[in-house]
């Protein structure tokens, strides 16, 4: 059937709305749960439900990411919303037996709130979920991403129908501009303005491109959006195409995202078969289709000019702007490049109005932002919060603080291009301008929590290792400069550095930030520069070689039990039974084995 009227769209919506059966069992097949074989759980549920003749009452729904990744694999059973966490294959039989047949609950699989040390049966009651607000992730985990009807049931494609019936392209750009939507890839450029730029260019052909390159280590926002709700992206791109005058869209996605490409391909062909992509959408004169372009996974290809080079089949390298892609983009034609998260907000803005969207968040930063929360935090997962939420809320409330009650030292945002936010700024509202004011940037959504044990110099080296390897090598500051910075950090960590190295790091970092060609280079020194500013003493400890790199025994506590001596893998502990023991700092490899076995806590960590 071709859906070319609002009526037909409504028909499908009605036919697919509400729970189809008495009980719906949602199995998360987001990447994280999938990596723990949630597909096998899903299969087992289906087999058992069939075997036990429960299929009249129970529907098993394969969903996208349920977001609480640290607790996966997850299953939510509606209508009541019982949430089972960390399920293994052997738990499936018990859930079916107890929950579905006996109508009792498997309480041992409930999430345990680490602060209250209490079991919490319902997702809505968990701190992790309570403070979140979902616009981008609206359907993620609620629908089966493989079924276009599920998306239509959630008002899918209605925004596109509205736009094609009632809006001129200028109207769409205006609405988006008024909503205050800004680029979620990290730059924060007003989306409506970007669309206007392309709209105003005259050309025989224009393109709209979705940047799904998502290269930050630890980031999984975009892939979760695509895997959980691919049609939202398709609908948004069609709207964007109409608004900018493009009839062809491209989704640039990295080859490593095979798990995301599959549902995306299925969604594109479903949309085509319903006539929601193709010619004359909703009986308008607007033709639109989307093609997937698979990139080889270079970090720099997230930079829009490099992305376009890569789309041409050329080496993924940025070029000087202007001309901007809106002037000369793919195939030399005006092109709009937006990030996945930016796009998926669009249908909601059309459906609910610009005012609704701009009422969420803060004045300069409307709407919500999705973060991939990870690191030293109890609740790891995908988090969507209104702009203006503080770091404290995300880290301590949603994230539940660091495990084992450790103190949180800093939050790294924006991945290898970002910097650290320290305790003093934890009450800063997360929005583009407030972050700018404290010298940080939003980034694409990576958020890594670091506790008191983290060595900031070591962490900076980790990020720099990543960027210097991912540098395309085109411009000198990035190609050679990041390598030299990395080498300085390496020297410092090996206790071979000098105080002059700190000055060199600063000068070099400044040069790379100001003189590099593209955003990758310009932001590559950020992790080093921000940690040097926030934790100068850690750098100095290495530069002046006062940093302790070996374990040491507190002689006043040592009872001479010899346990430490026996476990030391490099035999660097001397001492007789009931006598004092001493560690040779030159030979100590800081493995911590002695520290773990000491019954008296006499061994001091470096």
């Amino acid at each position: 059937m071709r859906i070319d009227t609002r009526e037909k769209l409504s028909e499908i919506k009605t036919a697919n709305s509400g729970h189809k059966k008495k009980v719906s069992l949602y199995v998360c097949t987001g990447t994280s749960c999938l990596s723990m074989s949630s597909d096998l759980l899903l299969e087992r549920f289906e087999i058992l439900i069939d075997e036990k003749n429960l299929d009249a009452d129970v529907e098993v729904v394969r969903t996208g990411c349920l977001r609480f990744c640290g607790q996966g694999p997850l299953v939510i059973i509606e209508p009541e919303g019982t949430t089972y966490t960390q399920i293994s294959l052997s738990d499936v039989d018990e859930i079916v037996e107890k929950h579905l047949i006996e109508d009792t609950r498997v309480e041992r699989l409930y999430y345990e709130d680490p602060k209250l040390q209490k079991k919490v049966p319902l997702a809505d009651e968990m701190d992790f979920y309570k403070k979140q607000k979902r616009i981008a992730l609206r359907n993620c985990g609620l629908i089966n991403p493989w079924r276009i009807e599920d998306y239509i049931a959630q008002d899918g494609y209605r925004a596109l129908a509205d736009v094609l019936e009632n809006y001129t392209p200028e109207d769409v750009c205006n609405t988006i501009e008024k909503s205050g939507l800004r680029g979620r890839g990290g730059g924060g450029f007003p989306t409506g303005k970007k669309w206007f730029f392309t709209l105003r260019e005259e050309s025989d052909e224009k393109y709209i491109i979705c940047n799904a390159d998502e290269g930050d280590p630890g980031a999984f926002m975009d892939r979760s959006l695509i895997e959980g709700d691919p049609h939202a992206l398709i609908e948004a791109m069609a709207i964007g195409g109409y608004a900018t005058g493009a009839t062809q869209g491209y989704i640039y996605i990295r080859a490593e995202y095979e798990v995301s490409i599959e549902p995306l391909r299925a969604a594109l062909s479903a949309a085509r078969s319903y006539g929601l992509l193709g010619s004359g959408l909703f009986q308008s004169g607007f033709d639109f289709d989307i093609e997937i372009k698979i990139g080889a996974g270079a970090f720099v290809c997230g930079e829009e000019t490099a992305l376009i080079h890569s789309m041409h089949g050329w080496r993924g390298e940025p070029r000087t702007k202007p001309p901007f892609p809106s002037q000369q983009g793919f195939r030399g034609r005006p092109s709009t490049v937006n990030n996945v998260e930016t796009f998926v907000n669009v249908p909601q803005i059309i459906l609910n109005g610009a005012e609704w969207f701009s009422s969420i968040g803060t004045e300069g930063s409307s709407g919500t932002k999705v973060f991939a929360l990870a690191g030293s935090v109890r609740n790891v997962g995908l988090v969507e919060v209104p702009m203006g939420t503080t770091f404290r809320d995300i880290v301590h409330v949603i994230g539940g603080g660091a495990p084992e009650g450790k103190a949180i030292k800093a939050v790294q945002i924006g991945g290898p291009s970002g910097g650290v936010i320290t305790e003093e700024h934890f009450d800063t509202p997360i929005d583009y301008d407030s972050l700018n004011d404290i010298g940080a940037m939003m980034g694409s959504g990576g958020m890594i929590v670091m506790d008191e044990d983290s060595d900031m110099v070591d962490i900076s080296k980790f990020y720099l290792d990543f960027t210097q390897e991912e540098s395309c090598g085109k411009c000198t500051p990035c190609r050679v400069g990041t390598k030299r910075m990395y080498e300085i950090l390496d020297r410092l960590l090996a206790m071979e550095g000098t105080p002059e190295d700190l000055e060199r790091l600063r000068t070099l970092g400044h040069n790379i930030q100001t003189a590099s060609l593209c955003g990758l280079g310009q932001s590559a020194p950020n992790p080093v520069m921000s940690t040097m500013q926030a934790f100068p003493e850690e750098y100095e400890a290495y530069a002046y070689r006062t940093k302790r790199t070996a374990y040491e025994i507190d002689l006043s506590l040592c009872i001479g039990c010899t346990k430490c001596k026996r476990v030391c893998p490099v035999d660097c502990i001397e001492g007789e039974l009931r006598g004092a023991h001493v560690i040779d700092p030159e030979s100590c490899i800081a493995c911590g084995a002695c520290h773990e076995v000491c019954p008296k806590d006499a061994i001091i960590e470096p």
Partner: protein
Amino acid sequence: MKLIDKKITCYVNDIELEVEQGTTVLDAGKKAGVDIPTLCHLDLHELGPVNQSANCRVCVVEDDNSGNLIPSCSQYVYDGMRIQTDSMNAVMGRRTSLELLLSNHPRDCLTCVKNRNCELQTLADDLNIREIHYKGEKMDHPVDDSSRAIIKDPNKCIMCRRCITMCNDMQTVGVLSPLDRGFDVVAGTAFHLDLDQTSCTYCGQCVSVCPTAALAERSATPNVWKALNNPDKHVVVQVAPAVRVAIGESFGYNPGDISTGKLVSALRRLGFDTVFDTIFGADLTVVEEAKELVDRIESDGPLPMLTSCCPAWVQFIEQQFPDLLDVPSSCKSPQSMVGALSKSYYAETAGVDPEDIIMVSIMPCVAKKSEADREELSEAGLANVDYVVTTRELARMIKEAAIDFRTLAEGAFDSLLGESTGAGTIFGTTGGVIEASTRTAYEMITGKELGTLEFRQLRGIEGVREATIETGDRKLRVGIAHELGNARQLLEAIQRGDAHFDAIEIMACPGGCIGGGGQPYHHGDISRLERRAAALYHIDDISERRKAHDNPLVKKVYEDYLESPGSLKAKQLLHTSYSAKERI
């Protein structure tokens, strides 16, 4: 980007300027009397593409309005722009970029072939770099000396990408491109193949623009010194036309100053036994080629006939257009003709055993080095030419021998293969070969004497030129292309059947041999090439004889030895063949 013809105002170091919209910051700086240092930037203007890749970040200046450092080579001035070229930020920016490049460079200047010709070295001095603050790992790539013509030392590569621009945009050969990622990035060949495994034509345009010695000619001078010092060898040398109008640049003369006489004297001082002129070979080529053309026209043979004196061009067609191998003239290049006759006609006349003759060519070209290696260009196991020395290498030999070039007397070529005409002289510039051939072909076809010798319509600098010349009843349709990208255009038109020419001249280098890869470095100043070309035309203008077939020694070699143009003996000694060489 749309550029509207509009004047805008900007400020360079507070000097107010009015410039055209579309002016780069670099050019605006020049207008304000500020010579912003550049490194990767290269603009050959009407001769070739611009390397505007903004890689090196040496030309950064500060945009006062945004506070950003911007590359002046590739950023355009906007209305109201305020540029600071000498702010602390800008100076530190460019110094750091340069220091970083130097930190990853061998810095073996004293023994480097580019010593005193290296743009990196000059810039380090200009920017007063006295210490390199950043130390660490350096690139460690194997040096590629697989070819006879070019040595590629990636450890000296600073990733300016000029070579890549020349190889891809100008020559469309596409052998060089950026490889790998991060610190390991280097300009190189696909899969790091050795050059001799690729479709490199050895045109040497990469060498002529490389700011360092990452790409340089492979020197033949040690072999030549050895030959000169071997009493059992009779060492014959020949000099190409474009050398005499360029070598002076290495001794403080202006580009285009003609130093033929001093050059001959210098060669004698170096110890060459006999000094011949490649122009003699050019004249001979004209006669043989004109005969071949007339034969092809009369016998409906394959037309157009393409000239074959440029070795990079011959490599190019063998590798890239194997289906068109019947179109190039079968004539050997002038260098090979002189070589072949030196080891036969001259050897017999002078009573020297050809086995004892070492033939050395002084060429403006690095591809001639690989041409000398072609099996087709040998007789009875003896290569027509043994060693090829570029203009630059000869200048170094002269200096090494402590010869004061400027005070040398004007010498003269040895007779037999030393007489030349204005026609063969202009072989050294684009359009010259076809003009010389036309002078002879006209008279061969019409049997009449040519009135005006200059064919102005064949001269110029445009990449592809066409002309129609009345030769009696028949119109001779002539095409000219220099640079291989332009040659490709013409060849593709021939493949499609869209191009209808009788004769086409092709030269791989911009401007022809005067812009060859073995010439003194032009450092982006194309007026040097123009002046060299003008000098060749000047020699032609003042020559006593200006038609190749009027060369008395050419006539004599036919009378004494070759019988007539296109004779069996001429075919055996002066003609060659081509074969397909498909490579990646």
